[in-house]
């Protein structure tokens, strides 16, 4: 590691708020990656009649456990549970519901207030809110990360091309961007939603079409500055290809400024999906999502735990990301004096 990067790391570490935020966010994100092990309506492990079964990995017909039907076992069924426990045991995840598990029996009651059984209550379709929250957090953050990564790559490439070649290339892409950025994204989505069912990837693609412009201006400016550096001239005099000069010699300079922006872009991308879901133009019905949780909260004001849960988790997530972003920004700031 170069001394400069070591200094930056030290500066980042010296920011307590940033470090704690990073730690908390990483733990939350890491846990949510294993959502299937935390909240699922299938057991993690079954010991039955001298053998082990892992229902999450593959499906077993009910007959395996001495049931009547040759169809996939429904483990939430009391009868099935009795059959298995007669000859072994079941290891359940801490939350024995998945995001789409509709509760059964006497528990089947929509809009239950928080209880020991359902720490955050149930929603208006009698699903456990905590389970949905874990899955919703995961999909929001993953969507945000993917959108940030892809739009940064596209943005950096577009900015690099504009700044490096300048002239007519620069001019035409700039004008194109001006026209493109004035397109009404939301209406476009509404129209698209009427003839295709937007899934994760379709939404990502559509949002990418309009979000790649965030970094362009910054990278373009860095490249405009960088292309006249003496070491870039020297590289051209050595006979290097343009692409190599752009990526080996100028891009490292532009990366510092871009990296500083990334956490803020991530915070923006995370809210993008949430707001689409809230408006009902997002992921298909039934998908776990923070936006959908907020929408339910709005529609069921008599069940305030829905709105509170949604609000608190989104506020927490965005605050953490902004705190991390501020710490990164300070770490890259050469004028910041280390104390």
């Amino acid at each position, binding site marked *: 590691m170069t001394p400069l990067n070591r200094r930056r790391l030290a500066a980042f570490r010296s920011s307590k708020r940033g470090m704690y935020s990073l730690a908390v966010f990483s733990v939350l994100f890491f846990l949510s990656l294993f959502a299937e092990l935390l909240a699922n309506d299938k057991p993690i492990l079954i010991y039955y009649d001298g053998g082990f079964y892992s229902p999450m990995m593959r499906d077993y017909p009910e007959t395996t456990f001495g049931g009547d039907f040759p169809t996939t076992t429904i483990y939430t069924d009391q009868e099935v549970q009795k059959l298995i426990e007669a000859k072994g045991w079941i290891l359940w995840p801490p939350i024995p519901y998945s995001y789409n598990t509709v509760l059964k029996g006497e528990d089947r009651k929509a809009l239950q207030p928080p209880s020991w059984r359902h720490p955050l209550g149930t929603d208006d379709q009698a699903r456990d809110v905590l389970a949905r929250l874990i899955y919703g957090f995961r999909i929001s953050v993953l969507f945000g990360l993917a959108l940030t990564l892809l739009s940064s790559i596209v943005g950096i490439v577009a900015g690099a091309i504009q700044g490096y070649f300048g002239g007519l290339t620069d001019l035409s892409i700039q004008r194109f961007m001006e026209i493109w950025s004035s397109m009404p994204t939301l209406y476009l989505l509404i129209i698209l939603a009427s003839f295709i069912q937007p899934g994760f990837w379709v939404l990502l693609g559509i949002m990418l079409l309009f979000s790649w412009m965030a970094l362009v201006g910054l990278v373009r400016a860095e490249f405009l500055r960088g292309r006249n550096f*003496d*070491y870039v*001239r*020297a590289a051209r*005099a*050595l*006979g290097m*290809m343009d692409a190599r000069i752009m990526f*080996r010699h100028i891009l*490292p300079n532009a990366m510092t400024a871009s990296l500083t922006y990334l956490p803020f872009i991530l915070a923006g991308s995370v809210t993008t999906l949430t707001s689409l879901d809230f408006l009902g133009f997002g992921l298909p019905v039934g998908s776990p999502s923070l936006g959908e949780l907020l929408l339910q909260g709005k529609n069921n004001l008599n069940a305030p735990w829905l709105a509170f849960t949604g609000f608190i988790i989104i506020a927490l997530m965005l605050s953490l990301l902004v705190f991390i972003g501020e710490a990164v920004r300070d770490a890259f700031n050469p004028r910041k004096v280390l104390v």
Partner: protein
Amino acid sequence: MTDTALLEVKNLSVNFGTGDDAVRAVKNVSFDIKRGETLAVVGESGSGKSVTALSILQLLPYPMANHPNGSIRFQGRELVGAPPRDLLDVRGNRISMIFQEPMTSLNPLHTIERQVNEVLILHKGLTRSAARKRTLELLEQVGIPEAATRLDAFPHQLSGGQRQRVMIAMALANEPDLLIADEPTTALDVTIQAQILKLLKTLQAKYGMALLFITHDLGIVAKMADRVCVMTKGLIVEQGPVAQVFDKPQHSYTQHLLSAEPKGRPAPVDPAAPEILALDDVKVHFPIKRGVLRRTVGYIKAVDGVSLTLREGHTIGLVGESGSGKTTLGLALLRLEGSKGGIQFDKQDLQALSQRELRPLRRQMQIVFQDPFSSLSPRMSVGEIVGEGLQVHRIGSEAERSRMIDQVLNEVGLDPAARERYPHEFSGGQRQRIAIARALVLKPRLIVLDEPTSALDMSVQAQIVDLLRDLQTRHKLAYLFISHDLKVVRALADEVLVLRHGKVVERGSAQQIFERPQTPYTQALIAAAFNLEAIGADKGAVAT
């Protein structure tokens, strides 16, 4: 009063930071200046000379900078740790200062009248109209032509020399007892430097000021100063009258500094060597565009019809002041800048080739830039920087390349172990050696040297000149040497072209140009460079 010292500095130390990792910039320095005397402080970059000057006016970034010991007495008044009110009375009033960079030391948003007035109104309490009269008088004294019409000019409307004159006018406004000049001519062209020095001398005699002159240029010291202090690494190693120090230097560093002038002459060359580069009427014009439709209304003629022939093993010196188009020409002949006219490299017409076809030829023509701090990518190790050219041209295997890098680093006088280190760990001179190694590793036949020595200290300049000369004879390299520093050009060039406003003013063998310059412009240039004389230059030949 005349016998007592005006300014007395005793055992002054300056530290940056505190504790064990404090940087000790100045260590126990003592000197004094008498009324009307000129004291020069000379030293290379990083020797602590500017820090010493700034501490006299207590202008350092306190409390980061601090004085662990020492005193500065001005007319018997202690300045170290003096209350701000007392310092304000001294600054700009009894002691004034001129800075190195005339581009940034004037406020770009105020007219020059306002800037000079400010000093007068602040310290003398003059009314606006009285101040205006005095300002006009001062501007005339410092030799601004048609001063009355220039009062309302903004700094960007003046040339570098004129700006420095305005700075001097501001410094002189209150007839200070001591003027501190911190490298006042370093950023200026030689002919203008000569004029400014002459001006300072005249004004000093007129006002009876003491002058503290900070410089790295021994020529200026000899010309201007009565006494001299030689500084290195924060210590004054020698001080005394100029004649004595220059004739019989006692300290080894002073001897080293005095012997460091670029010396020697180019080795004789074979006049029938094969031609390697031929320029025929090369022009680089930048269009000036105006109006909504960006119509071209005229051209800036950066290079306007230059022809030359360079043979193998020869050096052509391209001489001129800033803005004369010499760097542009250097870039144009490597096709790094668009141009018109014929460029023949090794009998091949470069203008007819596309960038792709040009690529294989690039290894035969290389360039070394002026500023070794910006010409090396800060994020690559020395080995990567030097080896990149080999990689691009797919020369040799990995092991062969590695051997070639070691070899070329040896050749430019660096330890091959330096490969793993990054450019910021090296000094200016070492960095310039790395840049030369990067060009040399490809075994080129032509190297364009764009002011390769002007960002370096004097003693390092001499070493680089020796290195270049040595490499030339060993590899039969052809050099196009671009410089405004005539001393360095004389040490290297066989043939000299004097460039002005993009046109060749005079050309000839080095001997002929330096000994019998024909045109007035070349004569003025040579007088200014070697004797620091401004001849026939105030008007006409050289515009300030």
